[in-house]
């Protein structure tokens, strides 16, 4: 799927040094529950959300839920 940007492979967890792996990350917004596969550090719980996801599809999903 296209949620995996090229540069995500360059990011790693600075807290424990482990590379990130793609896992299902849960989100909530406006009483809805969502899931997006994203790179994350499973030991620290840190998630990586690239800019284009945040300003692109997430923003679009937010608008749909807000009824904009």
């Amino acid at each position: 799927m296209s949620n995996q940007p090229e540069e995500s492979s360059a990011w790693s967890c600075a807290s424990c040094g482990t590379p990130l792996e793609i896992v299902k990350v849960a989100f909530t917004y406006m009483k809805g529950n969502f899931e997006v596969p994203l790179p994350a550090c499973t030991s620290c719980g840190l998630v990586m959300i690239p800019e284009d996801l945040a300003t692109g599809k997430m923003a679009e999903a937010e608008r749909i839920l807000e009824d904009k």
Partner: protein
Amino acid sequence: MNYESAELHAVTGPAIRPGGVELTARALEFCSFPDSARLLDVGCGSGASVEYLRDHHHLNAAGVDMSSRLLRDGKSRVASLPLVLGNAERLPFGDESLDGILCECVLSLLPDAECALTEFCRILRPGGRLILSDVYMRESGENQCHGENSTDGCLKGAVAYPVTKKMLEESGFTVLFWEDHTPLLKELAARLVLADVASAVFCGEYKKAGDGYQRPGYYLLVARKD
């Protein structure tokens, strides 16, 4: 929108519609069918609702769908599910033979909704219940006929509620209960956007419909055959 696509299933699960079985449960609360009541799920897909009705509510439920592939998926999941191939406009059931019909997220996709409703009326016993959930247009706009709004695909048949109500009344039904559940539709749309599934299709339609005056919503309705 290809309802058989694997990508879509990955987002929605086997119940391909907003809210999954949540709305089904809500409607059943309102209907209080006795155990073993005979129900038909029109547009059952791979039988998620049929399974749910049989297992959780002890109802004698069967399903009919036009997609032999989805029916096969259902049967491979649970071999004993009573699912048959068929068409909403000519249902393989006798007159007044059923206690209830479920038609979830299907009516607006049918080419001849009136014909389907007449069929439903035929196979339901008097006093039987029709459970409908579907997309609708929240604003009553200039288009007031089924199948005539400006979008394509799964929002094509969505019309304003008064149109549906009239059609039901003309087909021999009385509406007992109608509820808006648009947040579920929005949630589904948002999930599809995030998963990048059909983003040019469903959400394009959703947004195109939203850009004009006709904004899609989702409803649950229970009607009684007079």
